[in-house]
């Protein structure tokens, strides 16, 4: 899923400084699952904005809303009336949701209340980690189901660098070395030979480096 983290309230306050009627809009998809942008977080952020406005003596009218998915036209259609009643929207969906709203309601400024962090999953309560980099050409079959593109700081394809120590990445002692994990996965399977093969240079044109990506499926077109 997409994992995000709410921006500091002060940063959001700066964005909306010139507007009075503000709609705080959540998304009940990924960002709700990671407790960053769902209905519950909308309530908390809206209260914080009301409170800080009151303390500062700013006149603000903060309303609240949420949809199932801010990244699909059919769900955001229903927001028309709510959006038209306000001067600006703070969306705490991911960057995809913010852009979808901005596209649908070009007259209204849509501000991001969230930093879209990465694609990953919860490891335990309160901890999320990045696991996929959407590089466009999955190699998990060759790396024991552990992605070095997303989980190695240098996205190495031929084994760990010289900074791997005690199973940790040189960049942070909090981060497991992806190649240490891959090594042990293959070792446990009795298939270490797989790591002797030289993996050729990656074709990054299928990743972001090839330009903005788009998928067209003729079989699904109406």
């Amino acid at each position, binding site marked *: 899923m997409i994992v995000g983290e709410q921006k500091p309230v002060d940063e959001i306050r700066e964005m909306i400084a010139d507007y009075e009627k503000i709609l705080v809009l959540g998304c009940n998809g990924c960002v709700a699952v990671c407790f960053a942008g769902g209905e519950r977080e909308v309530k908390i952020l809206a209260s914080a904005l009301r409170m800080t406005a009151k303390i500062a003596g700013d006149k603000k009218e903060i309303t609240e809303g949420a949809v199932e998915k801010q990244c699909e036209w059919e769900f955001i259609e229903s927001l028309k009336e709510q959006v038209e009643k306000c001067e600006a929207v703070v969306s705490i969906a991911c960057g995809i949701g913010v852009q979808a709203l901005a596209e649908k309601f070009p007259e209204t400024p849509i501000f991001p209340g969230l930093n879209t962090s990465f694609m990953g999953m919860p490891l335990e309560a309160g901890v999320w980690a990045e696991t996929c980099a959407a590089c466009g050409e999955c190699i998990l079959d060759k790396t024991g189901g552990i992605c070095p593109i997303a989980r190695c700081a*240098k996205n190495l*394809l031929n*084994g*760990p660098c010289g*900074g791997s120590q005690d199973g940790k990445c040189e960049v942070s002692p909090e981060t497991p070395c992806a190649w240490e994990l891959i090594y042990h996965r293959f070792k446990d399977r009795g298939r270490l030979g797989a790591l002797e093969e030289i993996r050729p*240079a990656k074709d990054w044109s299928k990743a972001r480096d090839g330009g903005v990506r788009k998928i067209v499926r003729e079989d699904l077109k109406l």
Partner: protein
Amino acid sequence: MKLMKSGSNLERLLQEGKFVVTAELGPPKSADADVIRKKANILKDVADAVNITDCQTAIVRVSSIAAGCILVQMGLEPIIQMTCRDRNRIAIQSDLLGAAALGIRNLLCLTGDHQKFGNHPSSKNVFDLDSIQLLKMVKDMRDEKKFQCGEEMDIEPRFFIGAVENPFADPFEYRALRLAKKVAAGADFIQTQIVYNVDKFSQWMERVRQLGLDHKVYILAGVSPLKSVGMAKYMKHHVPGLDVPDALIERIGKAENPKEEGIKICVEIINRVRKIQGISGVHIMAIEWETSVPEIVERAGLLPRPKIA
């Protein structure tokens, strides 16, 4: 005599079976050519070839190729270093064509330290290739006259190709296998991470010999004189992948003259690694202490160095 791949002095000496000495020169953090010349003069008659780091620890310095070019002008033989951190395959190949055109004949290929440790931690890294893919690319440029994309070239850059390996990083059991990958990808010589733990290094070399790699590649053991107990502790705790035994830290700590003790330890380590089967030379990395190199080389009985042909 075997056909030379690059014609470099380093390649020739290794081919002749000489025990070689390479040293490291850290370029300055300013456009000061005199610093490079001064350091080069210190290393001139004590090292067979001189490594020039490529913005090591991700700190901006004079480029390895530019500094290497100054060394060529001075009659020294540089080993330029190329990391995967700052350049994609287009920039690397372009810079290597230029380096070869400027008369540089030795190249060391590395992954590169992450920029988090440097002076521009907010920069974007590249890592288009990893070090093994980089080795393969420069070997194909030299031996197949082909760019990474497969296109052919008229005049190929002829480098004596080096790689690094860290016997002290984890997983330890995989380190010799990774060296085998580097050899298969194109490495002609290896310079290892700094050796302080000679016993562990010997264990790694045993594995290297089991794989027959000592017959396929020249291995130079990395050494570095410790200046103080503070430096020893820093290297143990803050430099990823370095193994500094406590006994050494204690020894430096008790010494009346830590610098002298550091040089003494370095010479002892050289004498020990020299005896390990499959070691073809030493690579002295005296970090911002190039002046210690002549004394280390002399006390290790490695002078005079053979004249550059």
